[in-house]
């Protein structure tokens, strides 16, 4: 019981916040975020003690399998679903402490783009009204100013306002719909855009266009992105930092280069191994995860990945691992037996 006894404070397991940076240097700070859904089958802890931060101009990628809680975490940050616990620091205030009216105003700085752009657009409205929706909600400027702002945003995302302004979502392709969604977020002059699997529903040929567009917009408007995806290749191309989630918890977080080149957590290795290699000469690496994802209603004790982990031992069932620095600089993993850690740090204390 050495070292990791800090993992247990009171009755609650703590995944650790050592990876968080100085509060003054970050734009968004999320600490101990919890989100529990109550279903007929029992309480599902979709997000369990998740902490991360986002610096200005940074892109944080969040990856994980379907159902690992990454979308729930993103929505909880905006309080689109109400988190059960945790703090969300933005602009010197805790978003969770705000009243509904204050939240409505504060939230306009943080916009969200969804996976299914068709579902994210009201089918009965025209594109120009969809893009200008935020402006008309807040009645900012005159009607002419709003229209001008809409035109600018549409041009910024590569949609000709004269061609597309009067169309309805049904008359657009998936990629065009996603552009409308991006324009709708941009008119609010946001500082952060949460991208909830923004390309997963699009054709492969369109995915790169939208990813590039998001990068361009990020540069042009100085945005920070919270980029959620299950596709590691997409995340790699766009992210400065990457967080890997498994069953509601962050298991590894660090600079994209570190996470991809030398993953410390066995789950990250498994995920990376699942990315198809374009070169047929490269042998398929074999680090299989055993079995299926356990039910989030009754997650395994200790490390949640242990039931599928090739390296699991008794300790993993007894104690929850805390996020600690492993591998390259700035990389953190929640694992008792991380790869390379044995060599690099000489094992757990």
């Amino acid at each position, binding site marked *: 019981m050495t070292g990791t006894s800090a993992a247990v404070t009171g009755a609650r397991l703590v995944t650790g916040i050592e990876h968080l940076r100085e509060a003054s240097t970050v734009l968004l700070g999320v600490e101990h975020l919890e989100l529990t859904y109550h279903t007929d089958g029992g309480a599902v802890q979709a997000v369990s003690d998740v902490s991360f931060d986002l610096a200005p101009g940074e892109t944080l990628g969040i990856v994980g399998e379907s159902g690992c809680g990454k979308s729930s975490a993103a*929505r909880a940050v*905006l309080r*689109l679903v109400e988190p059960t616990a945790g703090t969300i620091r933005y602009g010197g205030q805790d978003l969770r402490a705000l009243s509904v009216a204050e939240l*409505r*105003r504060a*939230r*306009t700085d*943080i*916009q*969200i783009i*969804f*996976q*299914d752009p*068709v*579902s*994210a*657009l*009201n*089918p*009965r*409205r025209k594109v120009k009204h969809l893009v200008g*929706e*935020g402006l008309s*909600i*807040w009645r900012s400027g005159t009607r002419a100013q709003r229209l001008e702002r809409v035109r600018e945003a549409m041009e910024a995302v590569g949609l000709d306002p004269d061609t597309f302004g009067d169309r309805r979502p*049904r008359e657009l392709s998936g990629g065009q719909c996603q552009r409308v*969604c991006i324009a*709708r977020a941009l008119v*609010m002059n946001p500082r952060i855009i949460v991208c909830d699997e923004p390309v997963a529903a699009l054709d492969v040929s369109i995915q790169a266009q939208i990813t590039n567009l998001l990068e361009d917009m990020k540069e042009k408007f100085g945005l920070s992105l919270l980029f959620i995806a299950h596709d590691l290749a997409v995340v790699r191309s766009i992210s400065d930092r990457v967080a890997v989630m498994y069953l509601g918890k962050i298991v590894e977080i660090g600079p994209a280069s570190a996470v991809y080149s030398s993953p410390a957590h066995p789950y990250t290795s498994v995920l990376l191994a699942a990315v198809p290699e374009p070169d047929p000469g490269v042998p398929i690496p074999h680090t299989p995860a055993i079995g299926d994802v356990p039910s989030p209603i009754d997650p395994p004790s200790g490390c949640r990945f242990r039931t599928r982990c090739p390296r699991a031992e008794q300790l993993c069932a007894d104690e929850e691992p805390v996020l600690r620095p492993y591998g390259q600089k700035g990389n953190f993993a929640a694992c008792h037996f991380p790869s390379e850690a044995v060599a690099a740090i000489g094992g757990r204390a």
Partner: protein
Amino acid sequence: MTGNQLQDPPLAAGIEAAAVPDPVARADGRRPSLWRRLRRARVLYWAAVAWLSVLAAVALFANLLPIADPAEFVGRPFTPPDWSFPEPLGTDNSGRSQLSRLIFGARQSLAVGLLSVLLAMAVGTAIGMAAGFWRGKVDRVLSLLIDSMLAFPPLVLLLALAAALQPTISTIVVALAVLLTPTFARLTRGSTLAYRSREFILAARALGAGTPRLLGRELLPNVLLTVSSYFFVVVATAIVAEGSLSFLGLGIPPPAPSWGGMISDARSSLSLHPEQVAIPATVFVLTVMALNVVGEHVRRRIEGSGPAAG
């Protein structure tokens, strides 16, 4: 040569036509069968539209038409139809003009049908949207209310209401609206639930939209479209219900003409003067059928193009 083309075996033509979705421009230049052409031209639909338009027009301008007062005696009772003016449809058992009574009856039937459905739609949509939007306790209470109203036998409800209230045109409208409200409420609730889970609601909230805007600007236009696709079909139901009430003598009180009342009046002399029942019954059936045909068409158009299908 054209003669040859017309003599093609119909079976082969049928198979061809079935395989080719748009037989107008068939590659072999053969003309599609008469039935197919009629169906494509939607003769039934346009006939229904025409019938309803004429009916609505004469009902609306009944006062201006050169017809007798529906309460006035214009001839001997039971004058058979002579298909010529001034009384082409003859007279009823009191010697009043059948044509005039049909037209003024149309006014009552259509007014009652439209008004009761509009009222039911307004109330039902509000209830259904509230249940679907807030869910939880609100939904449980409202759904219980809807279900218990739907479980009540409609005719018994109508009879009870007719007994409790003075039968006037407005009480009948209200009674029918009460009867139809749960249908709309349930329809709206389902539609609201479906749209509520769509991400444009979350997107609007992220942009700062409050509850009134979510309900009024985001949900209502979508929900209303789905609900209004049932409008004509439900109007037909309402007209049938009003006819039944009038037939039972609990509808629009005499001497005001109504279709159900006309059928009811003529019932006793059915064996001697079957046309007394046949004429209003035919108009009634045609109208209900036309409403159903148009309603079905509208519903398919909306659902085909609509958001519900994706």
